[in-house]
């Protein structure tokens, strides 16, 4: 039986085999995980359990529980000075993944182009393809710490672009932007009338400067869809809960698709999320401290053993070059896995331009990181020329 052409054409390809290999191997030390190693803080889990005991098991409004939307808007105001209306400008989604898909489908007409930094989170080009748009990949370089330059965005705009998808701090590179750098991008967005889909799910994990939401920049709110969620800050990946804030018209469009395809996010997750925003920030602070230490440790060890990398500004990933050792990141990762039982993600999984890199996640205990790096070191030594 044939499936639709655009689905047929979707990646992934070679990378799937590598993933299967990892998932089927026992006793692997994994630095390949894209989620926190902390379990959701107990007060949040306890609230979810209690809500089930209380009988909260129904649908909620399509946009999500109004209590949750209100507390999200209060949080965004308190933390970043953002002004979003919980009724008209906020939508609760099933993770940021759904929010991205909804946003893209809401804004794109067939053939319209979307600028995406390369590497990017795997779903970015895919959701644009599925929406009938055309992803335009803008390669970023290690010398620039994997940040987009104003020039390349402008160049992309000149060929015609409807939107820019930007993720900072970035999965897989850990790159983020200062307010000053964002302002320069904002100028281009204004000049070329771009819609900016800003995925800020790692905002709480910004280490060297304060995170600045794109929509907080002067004049930007009207052209930005702000996407965030609970997975990374509160270690709630399995709850699948995110939110989108933006201009009422765009949010209304996204809500239309959401109501037909998802109806609403799980009520249990929404109850848990309310608790997260009410009282979960102490845990966030503790987790962030721990990630910061691991980041320093991993970057310093990687450079010590010959894998060149920069100090990423956020998230929990390091993105070192393996070019001294191999030209093919899937081969490199497969060989390392087979010989030393250490798993990491080949860079090519996140885009063609980052062949020659790997993503290392430090969302893993210190003991694991230490052992994994020793194993990588012993793997690389005989290969050092």
């Amino acid at each position, binding site marked *: 039986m044939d499936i639709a052409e655009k689905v047929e054409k979707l990646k992934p390809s070679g990378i799937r085999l590598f993933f299967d290999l990892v*998932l089927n*191997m026992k006793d*692997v030390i994994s630095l390949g*995980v894209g989620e926190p190693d902390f379990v959701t803080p107990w007060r949040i889990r306890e609230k979810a359990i209690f809500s089930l005991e209380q009988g909260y098991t129904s649908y909620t409004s399509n946009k999500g529980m109004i209590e949750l939307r209100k507390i999200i808007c209060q949080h965004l105001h308190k933390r970043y000075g953002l002004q979003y209306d919980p009724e008209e400008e906020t939508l609760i989604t099933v993770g940021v993944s759904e929010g991205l898909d909804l946003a893209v489908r809401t804004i794109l007409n067939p053939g319209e182009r979307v600028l995406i930094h390369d590497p990017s989170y*795997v*779903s970015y080009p895919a959701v644009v393809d599925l929406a009938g748009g055309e992803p335009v990949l803008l390669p970023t370089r290690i010398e620039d710490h994997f940040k987009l330059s104003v020039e390349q965005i402008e160049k992309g705009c000149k060929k015609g672009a409807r939107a820019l998808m930007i993720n900072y701090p970035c999965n897989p590179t850990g790159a983020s932007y200062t307010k000053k750098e964002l302002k320069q991008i904002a100028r281009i967005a204004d000049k070329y009338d771009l819609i900016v889909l800003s995925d800020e799910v790692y905002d709480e994990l910004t280490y060297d400067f304060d995170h600045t939401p794109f929509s907080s920049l002067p004049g930007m709110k009207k052209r930005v869809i702000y996407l965030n969620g609970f997975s990374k800050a509160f270690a709630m990946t399995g709850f699948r809960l995110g939110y989108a804030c933006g201009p009422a018209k765009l949010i209304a469009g996204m809500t239309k698709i959401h109501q037909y395809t998802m109806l609403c996010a799980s009520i249990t997750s929404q109850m848990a999320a309310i608790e997260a925003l009410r009282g979960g920030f102490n845990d966030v602070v503790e987790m962030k401290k721990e990630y910061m*230490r691991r980041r320093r440790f991993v970057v*310093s060890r990687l450079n010590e053993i010959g894998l060149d990398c920069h100090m990423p500004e956020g998230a929990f990933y390091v993105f070192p070059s393996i070019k001294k050792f191999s030209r093919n990141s899937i081969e490199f990762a497969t060989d390392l896995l087979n010989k030393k039982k250490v798993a990491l*993600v080949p860079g090519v999984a996140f885009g063609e331009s980052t062949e020659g890199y790997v993503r290392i996640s430090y969302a893993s205990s210190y003991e694991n990181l230490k052992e994994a790096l020793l194993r990588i070191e012993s793997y690389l030594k005989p290969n050092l020329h």
Partner: protein
Amino acid sequence: MNEILEVLSKNARLTPDEISKLTGQSANAVKAAIKKYEKDGVIVQYKTVINKELIDENPNFVRALIEVSITPQKDVGFDYIAERIYSFPEVKSCYLMSGSYDLLVEVEGENIQTVSNFIASKLSPMSHVRGTATHFLLKKYKEDGHILKKGKQRQRLNISY
């Protein structure tokens, strides 16, 4: 708390080199700071948290929390009496409390008799001690931030985007 102390309080086995990598300070600075903390008594001891319930070499081992009421004497504050109490090696911890009694004393012993004897022959007869109330511990669930029950392995996928 200072970052060196914070990482050590979680894992006392870290070497100065490892602490240097975790905190971004030089290994020499870390070594010097630790030396000073030890000298000043900020770092008291490096210990291991052990769940004694899993060691069955002494099944009669007991712990008790004892509330001690004291009549403070002129010129002899609580500190003096506390010192007389906590100097016994049987006493594992000793705190001055607000509320309906004065000292909370944790005592460990080979069996219930050892602990009872200690209270009857040493603690209660001590001058200034007005009375004691002893609570024997039945089970430890969590100690000093550590849950003693071994948790289940989390079911996180070994690889994900």
